[in-house]
């Protein structure tokens, strides 16, 4: 008997072939958080033959935000996709934007050799935490691949938390001055900053 949970993914791979679809688009969706936003959005994408590549969908405060890269089928324009999403926009009071993307996915490939690290920051909420941290990273030529912040703690004593995934801008190592510069910033902002170099070992 075949385990129904473990279906054969090799069959699915031949089913959807992203290279047959050339046009790429960025779709953003935002609205008041409630069940069904992802399901109803992706239902439209499924029905119109769009292929979802990378995506980020998350709850932010009371809102839900969706950003995804689509491979559009040849016959579907960004405007036509936006029109197909319109009934959903009206029904769930969403804000939707479809934006054509230039270039191809190969742009990411050189980044695979870049050294990666995770920076986590924790401290009393104050203006400028994100700006000063990311400005330092930009000065050091570090590329941000992911950034996530969240306010924790009580309303009287808010604690700001931030996680940034960074990588060197080319295939070299992250600059050695990054650690001491972050230690300086830690003192200036009176926050805790922890930089963990990603281990690239394979198991």
């Amino acid at each position: 008997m075949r385990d129904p949970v473990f279906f054969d993914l090799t069959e699915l791979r031949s089913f959807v072939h992203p290279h047959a679809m050339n046009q790429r688009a960025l779709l953003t969706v935002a609205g008041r958080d409630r069940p069904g936003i992802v399901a109803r959005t992706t239902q439209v994408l499924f029905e119109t033959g769009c292929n979802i590549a990378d995506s980020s969908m998350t709850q932010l405060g009371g809102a839900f935000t969706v950003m995804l890269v689509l491979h559009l089928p040849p016959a579907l324009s960004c405007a036509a996709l936006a029109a197909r999403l319109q009934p959903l926009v009206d029904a769930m009071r969403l804000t939707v934007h479809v934006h054509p993307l230039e270039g191809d996915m190969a742009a990411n490939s050189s980044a695979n050799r870049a050294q990666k690290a995770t920076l986590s920051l924790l401290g009393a909420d104050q203006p400028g935490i994100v700006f000063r941290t990311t400005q330092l990273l930009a000065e050091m030529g570090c590329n941000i691949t992911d950034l996530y912040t969240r306010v924790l703690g009580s309303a009287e004593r808010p604690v700001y938390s931030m996680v940034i995934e960074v990588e060197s801008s080319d295939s070299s190592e992250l600059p050695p001055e990054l650690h001491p510069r972050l230690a300086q910033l830690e003192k200036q902002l009176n926050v805790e900053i922890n930089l963990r170099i990603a281990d690239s070992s394979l198991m």
Partner: protein
Amino acid sequence: MAILEILTYPEPRLRAQAEPVDRFDRPELQQRVDDLLQTMAALPACVGVAAPQVGYPYRLLVIQCQNSRKPPLEHPGLLVVGNPEILSWSGTEVGREGCLSLPDYTGNVLRAQTIQVAFQDRDGQPRQLTLQGFAARVMQHEIDHLNGTLFTDRIVSRKTDLFPRKQRQ
């Protein structure tokens, strides 16, 4: 000795429960141990291989933390591990893992920081080790392979992890 091909997802054998090693004195088993060691040595930055990753469905794995690009200061050296059992766990730590069977993908996984593990060495002799940090992580990752578990099954939410307090002693 042979460098074996690493099976990659979605190979169904990666999801199977591995069988205990019953006898260590069989030449075939010793041959497999040598193959695993040679395979691990041949792959860049490879710190561990579990037998199911090369299609050998037994509770057997090899570890060498020294192969890491940044080896930890303390680690147990080369280990050949048969029939491992984790006796105790303590502490937790989130760390990034990459797996030969899931190429080009890394993720954050919560693991016990310290484990005590009982196993049999390649001669079948019972041994016990206490492992910490990276070595403990590698052992837990490889033991998962013996149970058909991949690290993607253990990925943690970045909303709730990733805030390791600095170690204060």
